[in-house]
């Protein structure tokens, strides 16, 4: 038996099917050990370090930087260290002292017919219940032992990747009194130790043949309702159950083409008109494209504009800026806007909601988590600040500074960017008088801030120079009426003008 082992991209987390290889940290001929980080993979919005599940000397690397790698794809092959000494790289069945064996090799039996029969016996995996844990599934056949070893490691790798995505180490993720997963973490179902065959769930009213059919179809026999006498489960019951499962899966797959995934019109051949370069749309850019198209196609957008006089606020901001600085943050307009919006969302709960069209329900969120769009060299990222209503402006300023830095340093994790109920985007740093931001689906509103500037305001019979902040509120017109949007934005503008309002109403 060859002692060459394959390392395949393990499951990295829920819904992560592939990633772009941004950094490869191994080379052919190098040794790799289990747990060693072998590459960095950029998935939708986070960069994940992928540890090796195998040890050995790298033989061949089958991917290169820039490749899109799918879960399960072979990344590299290696000569396993352990097996090399024992097997002495000899063909199977090599007998050292006895020559008899070599002289009379076992007759080759599998005729074509038998092979066909064996193939027929192969279970057709129709429906694999998603809940089936990896380690319990029957061993996939015909894999080198080392590959089998890897399979055993898979859940652990997934776990490692998942906690890494949350920015934690294994130690942090597991409470101290919980046992650490051992290297050969083996999920042992209730042992046969007592009385084999009786440790499991109680006898199911189905014949052995029916039970096996269920297993082959990937149906949990205990979930099948038996229509036979005394609740006996018949072959037809299993098939009907499997069919129902399949139909559910298929209909889920066939639900109206998801917005953002509709067929794009065919592109012309640009090269006809001049030289072009095609660059793969990677990670963040691809996800942004998909997500914004989805938002745009799903949500009937309207943008409401308003202006806030922040002359007084600016004085307060300047006065309290050192306080924020001491705490390690920056008292920016965005930080203040967070506080203002949190208060506004409490007054106007329909802006802190989502629409569930499938169930025709409105989901009102009892929490206020606000995303803040950040411009990074990787593209647009939206870290989310949690429970904004429960934090003061200094705290928000500090957290905002930290998150933005994290986003720019590529340290941001998927979890840092999930769960927002409203978004703020501030382009004021760059310029502009107004814009129409796109709502971050499934949220229903987004507030855009443009550059504030001194403008003449007609106050008390004369023009006065005032600092004016332009506000642009885009909203989902399915849930929010124009008048409500105008009221919401007015409330926000007034809160900027009279911060005291936050204490009174917010």
């Amino acid at each position, binding site marked *: 038996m060859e002692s060459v082992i394959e390392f395949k991209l393990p499951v990295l987390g829920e819904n992560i099917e592939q990633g772009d290889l941004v950094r490869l940290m191994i080379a052919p001929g190098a040794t790799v050990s289990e747990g060693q980080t072998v590459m960095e993979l950029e998935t939708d919005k986070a960069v994940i370090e992928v540890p090796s599940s195998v040890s050995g000397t790298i033989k061949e690397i089958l991917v290169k930087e820039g490749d899109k790698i799918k879960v399960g794809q072979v990344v590299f092959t290696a000569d396993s260290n352990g097996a090399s000494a024992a097997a002495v790289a000899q063909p199977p069945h090599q007998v050292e002292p006895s020559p008899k064996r070599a002289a009379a090799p076992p007759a080759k039996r599998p005729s074509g017919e038998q092979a066909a029969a064996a193939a027929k016996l192969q279970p057709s995996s129709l429906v694999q219940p998603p809940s089936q844990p990896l380690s319990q599934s029957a061993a996939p056949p015909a894999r080198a032992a080392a590959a089998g070893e890897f399979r055993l490691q898979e859940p652990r790798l997934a776990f490692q990747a998942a906690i890494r995505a949350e920015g934690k180490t294994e130690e942090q993720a597991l409470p101290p009194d919980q046992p650490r997963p051992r290297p050969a973490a083996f999920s042992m179902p209730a042992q046969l130790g007592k009385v084999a065959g009786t440790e499991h769930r109680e*006898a199911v009213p189905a014949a052995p043949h029916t039970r096996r059919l269920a297993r082959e179809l990937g149906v949990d026999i205990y979930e099948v309702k038996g229509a036979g006498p005394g609740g006996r489960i018949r072959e037809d019951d299993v098939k009907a159950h499997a069919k129902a499962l399949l139909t559910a899966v298929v209909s889920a797959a066939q639900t109206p083409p998801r917005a953002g995934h509709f067929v794009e019109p065919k592109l012309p051949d640009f090269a006809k008109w001049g030289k072009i370069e095609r660059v793969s749309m990677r990670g963040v850019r691809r996800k942004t494209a998909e997500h914004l198209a989805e938002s745009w196609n799903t949500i009937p957008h309207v943008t409401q504009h308003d202006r806030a006089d922040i002359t007084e606020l600016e004085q307060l901001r300047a006065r309290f800026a050192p306080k924020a600085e001491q705490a390690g943050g920056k008292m920016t307009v965005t930080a203040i806007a967070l506080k203002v919006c949190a208060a506004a969302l409490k007054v106007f709960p329909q802006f802190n909601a989502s629409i569930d069209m499938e169930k025709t329900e409105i989901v009102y969120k009892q929490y206020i988590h606000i995303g803040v769009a950040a411009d990074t060299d990787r593209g647009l990222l939206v870290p989310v600040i949690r429970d904004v209503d429960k934090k003061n402006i200094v705290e928000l300023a500090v957290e905002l500074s930290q998150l933005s830095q994290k986003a720019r340093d590529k340290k941001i994790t998927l979890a840092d960017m999930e769960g927002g109920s409203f978004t703020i985007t501030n382009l004021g740093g760059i310029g502009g008088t107004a814009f129409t931001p796109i709502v971050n689906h499934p949220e229903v509103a987004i507030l855009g801030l443009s550059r504030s500037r001194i403008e003449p305001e007609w106050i008390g019979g004369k023009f006065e120079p005032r600092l004016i902040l332009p506000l642009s509120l885009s909203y989902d017109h399915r849930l929010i009426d124009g008048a409500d949007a105008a009221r919401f934005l007015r409330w926000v503008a007034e809160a900027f003008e009279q911060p005291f309002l936050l204490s009174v109403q917010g």
Partner: protein
Amino acid sequence: MPEASLNIAVIGAGPGGYAAAFLAADLGMQVTLIDPEANPGGVCLYRGCIPSKALLHVAKLIAESQQAKNWGIEFPPPKIDLARLRTWKESVVKKLTGGLGQLSKQRHVEYIQGRAAFTNSTTLRITKADSTEAVLTFDRIILATGSRPAIIPALKLASPRMMDSSGALALEDIPGSLLVVGGGYIGLELGSVYAALGTRVTVVEMLPGLLPGADRDLVLPLHKRLEKMFEAILLNTTVASLKEDGAGIRATFEGGAVQEKEKTFDRVLVSVGRKPNSEIPGLETTQVHVGPRGFIEVNKQLQTADPSIYAIGDVVGEPMLAHKASHEGRIAVEAIAGHKVAFEPNAIPAVVFTDPEVAWCGLTETQAEKENREIKVAKFPWAASGRAITLDRPEGMTKLIFDPQSERVLGVGIVGIGAGELIAEGVLAIEMAALASDIAMTIHPHPTLSETFMESAEVFFGTSTHVFRPKRG
């Protein structure tokens, strides 16, 4: 690599090991079967089920020849040619193990007489019977190393008078007196053999009843008969010490209502259970896990914590029965072949081959009581069976345990001659989720003991032809 070309090794050629090896070969795998004996068979064929059944057949014949007096046929006391009896027993073993050797050859299973040690998860160093060594590498290895008689350290005595089950089956002599330590199935079966051959047998059991674990109503008829056959059955009793003296082995008893606290026996048979053979050399080089009681831990596919190693039979847990091992062996091979299978029987039959036999499967009354589970029990006494009367053995009983709601049969217990054969129908009924009405409406041949199975189901409905026991309420 298609699974057809998988290269697998099976260590241990008992009923689990050879069943696995043969199926693997039938599925087109290359199979190596390793065992210290010259042919497949294992403990079951060489020193267990098979030789004991041959001897029990003889014991039954002797008992019937004596009983025949009641029917007007009298035989003189039997003359026992021990050498010929041994030869016959050995010929039975040889015939069966030789047959298995033939079957191995026909299937092109590479049979190696020797002992295997792991050097890693996929490599075995095999020391052959001729002292040569071979190092072989496999894709998958199945451990079917079985079990051996357990030893109580306090009763360890280096004396030729001491026997375990293997020693008892060797049938060296017919001792005048025999102490059987342990009232489980092995002790009772072998005790019955020696009693039939003329030995005065004393059975000592620590627990309050024989055959611990079996329902008491099934054990009672056997107990009654054994009381007549054996010199004594000492329950709630332990053996405090065993000492060799000139005349034999002196045993001291403790507890129970034993009058004689000390007694000397010509021979002592220790049958206090079996221990798994999980001390496989080199196993520490693999990831295989051995549990606290010495059983190798496996999942429902019989796969150990080491993905390339599977384990089946006695070495993975109770019940330590050949038929459980064979079934597990086949499941393990199917799992290796990539089929979606699991070891999940609804019933595993247990048979005690005494006279009368005791057999049961599925749920027992004892277990239902422990689980506080509602059941309905229907019993058919063999005194109402025409066939049992013709055999002059009316002490038997057939019992069905039902789920009161669905009327599904959950357990079957039988005591009586031939119970071991009859229980198979019970296993099938449970596996097929048969209802009381299914069994009652299935025509059974008359006059046979199998009718008792059908009539038990009729008892459930209070409409048994041969038992008047109307349904209450």
